[in-house]
């Protein structure tokens, strides 16, 4: 059938939810144990955003300790003492153990319970089937299982805060032998202790991401609608496709490592414990023969692809938003796709650049330095293509576009500052300093999180039929943008001065010596950073209010408020179970904006190609075009 008529049909009936399904599901099956990809996407999104905020709260607590080491926590000090006990907060001052727990759990929650669920699972679930014109994911029940495995994993992680000894405290990387021997002894339960629960929670999270990854790849391979060839897929779908492969293949080695660490902790094996290990002045009774390095290898075999799991969905979102708001085709679509694939492949062979300090041989380190250099090429291709896409566009600075535009320089800073870390010689100096913190936060925080915000503002109308408020969106954006930079820019300085990332006193002790010996001082930066962090927290309030207010009271919009071209905007709003009233057909590429000789400046993928149509050309870089 003619697909364009389905579009106009949908536009005439913006309240498609009034239509009834063949069978009406009960509340529990519809909103809680749902198999509908959109509901699961929203479940992932809401839980992920809550976890993101929680992880951020942990950091806001740590920032007090860093700015005012050893002083009483204001406002929440007494409350935390009542909730977590004297072992965590003594007389309103957080203990080193609690500080370590906050640090380890901040990383764990932000990455595995925040960003991945939101950027990959939430947007992937909600948007991908719609963009490829599928009725749902290939395996809806497995999709539901994926969410609930994630949910239980998250609950286990949260419970670990309340067991004796508190949550995991060996860093988010859980390096052995420390993570093997911590939280053990007569006062600890064999299972109900922070580190063991961290491992169990992780097994559930890995299960969840495995089920999700299989589902995403199978969906993209099998359920593309008629005419939706591989090169007509929106870049977002490509990004999710590569991300799913990374999750599929990189997580299992970590799972094997986690099983081994669990065996070390519960069954007393020595996978990661070397012979003759001495703890607290006494030799430990273990068989020994294990290797702490083995953990690092298996961990970073996940750890590095995980970086691209965090950034690729963000890049996908940014691509959609940029194409839509510049009103012109994405520049270099084919190079973008190829770069994403190469990025995915190369991300598997760079992991040891996280381990320069372990003293590997020159051959091995030369190999990993080389691959690390090579992987910057596809990243630069992607970023350059986005920048060039802005060239000559009539840019609409909507709220999603503001976030997407901010993503570009922020990701650029994050990426470029990674180069000194890629070289063995410079990394030996910068390793484990605040420089590293600043580097990867520039990629993940003002990078991916901004992309996530762009995505939320962009697809909110599709999920709810209402737009989020533009003014309050800008009130959300500008302070967030400023605060992010005030937080992370000084950290480069601190790191280059030598402040270590895991110091409980925020470098106060170091500062005394540094001032005497070198006349340097970096500690004083902690206060402005902390103030900016708390302000960043305040800056999220307009977003939270806007989010819930707009759900009920926001401006009502039609099916395609952004005048976009991809298939999700042809579906009724919000899409009902099964998505499309009539299966859509794709006749053209995903970004046919400003096609010459057309009344509208956008041509949807469902519009058949006219026989006399002049095909769109990618605009050239010359000024005279």
């Amino acid at each position, binding site marked *: 059938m003619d697909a364009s008529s389905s579009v106009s049909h949908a536009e005439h009936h913006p309240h498609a939810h009034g239509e009834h399904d063949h069978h009406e599901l009960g509340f529990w099956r519809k909103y809680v144990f749902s198999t509908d990809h959109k509901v699961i996407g929203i479940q992932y999104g809401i839980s992920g955003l809550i976890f993101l905020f929680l992880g951020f709260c942990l950091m806001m607590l740590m920032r007090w300790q860093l700015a005012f080491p050893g002083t009483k926590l204001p406002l929440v000090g007494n409350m935390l003492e009542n909730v977590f006990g004297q072992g965590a907060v003594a007389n309103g001052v957080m203990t080193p153990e609690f500080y370590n727990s906050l640090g380890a759990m901040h990383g764990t929650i932000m990455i595995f319970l925040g960003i991945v669920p939101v950027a990959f699972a939430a947007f992937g679930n909600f948007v991908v089937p719609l963009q490829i014109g599928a009725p749902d994911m290939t395996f809806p029940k497995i999709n539901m299982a994926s969410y609930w495995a994630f949910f239980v994993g998250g609950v286990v992680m949260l419970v670990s805060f309340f067991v004796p000894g508190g949550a995991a405290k060996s860093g988010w990387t859980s390096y052995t032998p420390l993570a093997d021997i911590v939280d053990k002894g007569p006062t600890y339960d064999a299972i109900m202790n922070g580190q063991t629960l961290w491992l169990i929670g992780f097994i559930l999270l890995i299960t969840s991401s495995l089920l999700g990854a*299989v*589902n995403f790849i199978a969906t993209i391979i*099998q359920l593309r609608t008629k005419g939706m060839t591989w090169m007509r897929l929106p870049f977002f779908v490509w990004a999710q496709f590569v991300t799913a492969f990374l999750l599929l293949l*990189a997580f*299992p*080695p970590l799972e094997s490592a986690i099983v081994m660490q669990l065996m070390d902790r519960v*069954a*007393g094996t020595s*996978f990661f414990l070397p012979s003759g290990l001495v703890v607290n002045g006494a030799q430990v*009774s273990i068989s020994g023969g294990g290797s702490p390095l083995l953990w690092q290898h298996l961990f970073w075999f996940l750890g590095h692809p995980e970086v691209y799991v965090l950034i690729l969905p963000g890049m996908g979102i940014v691509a959609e938003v940029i194409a839509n708001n510049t009103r012109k085709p994405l520049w270099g679509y084919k190079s973008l796709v190829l770069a994403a694939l190469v990025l995915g492949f190369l991300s598997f062979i760079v992991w040891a650049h996280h381990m320069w300090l372990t003293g590997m041989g020159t051959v091995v380190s030369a190999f990993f330095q080389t691959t690390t250099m090579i992987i910057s090429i596809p990243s630069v291709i992607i970023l350059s293509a986005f920048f060039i896409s802005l060239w000559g566009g009539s840019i609409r600075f909507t709220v999603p576009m503001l976030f997407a535009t901010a993503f570009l320089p922020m990701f650029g800073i994050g990426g470029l500052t990674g180069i000194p870390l890629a070289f063995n010689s410079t990394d030996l100096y910068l390793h484990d300093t605040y420089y590293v913190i600043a580097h990867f936060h520039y990629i993940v925080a003002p990078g991916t999180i901004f992309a996530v915000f762009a995505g939320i503002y962009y697809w909110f109308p599709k999920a709810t039929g209402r737009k989020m408020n533009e003014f309050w969106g800008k009130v959300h954006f500008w302070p967030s943008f400023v605060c992010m930079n005030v937080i992370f820019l000084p950290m480069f300085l601190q790191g280059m001065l030598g402040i270590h990332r895991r110091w409980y006193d925020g470098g106060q002790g170091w500062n005394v010596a540094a001032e005497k010996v070198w006349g340097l001082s970096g500690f004083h930066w902690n206060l402005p950073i902390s103030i900016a962090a708390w302000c960043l927290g305040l800056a999220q309030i307009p977003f939270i209010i806007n989010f819930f207010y707009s759900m009920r009271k926001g401006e009502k919009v039609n099916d395609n408020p952004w005048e976009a071209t991809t298939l999700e905007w042809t579906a009724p709003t919000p899409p009902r179970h099964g998505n499309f009233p009539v299966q859509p057909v794709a006749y053209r590429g995903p970004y046919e904006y400003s096609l010459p000789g057309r009344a509208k400046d956008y041509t949807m993928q469902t519009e058949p190609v006219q026989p006399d149509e002049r095909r769109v050309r990618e605009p050239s870089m010359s000024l005279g075009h």
Partner: protein
Amino acid sequence: MEIPYTVTARPDTGLWNAKVGIWLFLASEVMLFGGLFSAYIFLRLDAPPGYWPHGLLNVPVGTINTAILIASSVTVVLAWASLKMRRFKAYWWYMLATISCGVIFLVVKLAYEWPQKFEHFGAYIKTSELEKYEKYLGNKHLLSQGLPPRVEISGHLHNPEALKDPKIKEYEIALDPIYTDPTNPAMDRPHFLYVPPTNKVAAIEKADVERATMFVPSHSTYFATYFTITGLHGLHVLGGVIVFIYFWLPVGSKLYRKNPEHLANRVEVAGLFWHFVDLIWIFVFPLFYLL
């Protein structure tokens, strides 16, 4: 709402959904066991001479189990082929055979092989005291043969209370045959057939022992990897058996009456998983039993 291509293949990919799904899942399983096997390699290469034991597992039993698993891989294919030929009765019997093989494998593993290990005892002798136990270890002979030394004395522990009671100063071990005649060249290599501990009891002073435990995961990196990998493999076998039982129960015949091809597809997917589990065992068996 219907998800397309659940039973029939999509024309351009030539695959139905679950087949794509299972191959992806198996790819991730390769990485999971790949992580464990690379740990095995890493730890084995790292082990000092004499610290990677040989000949502690029961090779004939392992061989039988290998044969059982391979047989079950054949029967599951026959079960699938019977469905394709629409012979439900044959399917039912082949499926039963597959399930039985899986169950026998697990019983042999969990009720025979593992407990036998848990009842076996080994004591690592301190390097400084190895000389004292030369008559059991025969290290001079091994050195002359260019073989790695023996650092452990194993067998049946006669006084298990010695493990708990600090007042008992000695372990009394009914020696494994290898320690009764250590210089015999026949003992240089592990036995193929399992030989139980002898009647010859040796007393080993606790003061001379570096570390002594039953053959449990914490005994050595060898047993740590053995129990972890075979345990995880056993869990996979159990998962496969449960899925097969589900298809074998009336659920299967109901689906068969509705859409026989759908049941055939499901059995095919589960069969692919089963072959993978079999394949893992083909790696496990030589790595732990033979090499």
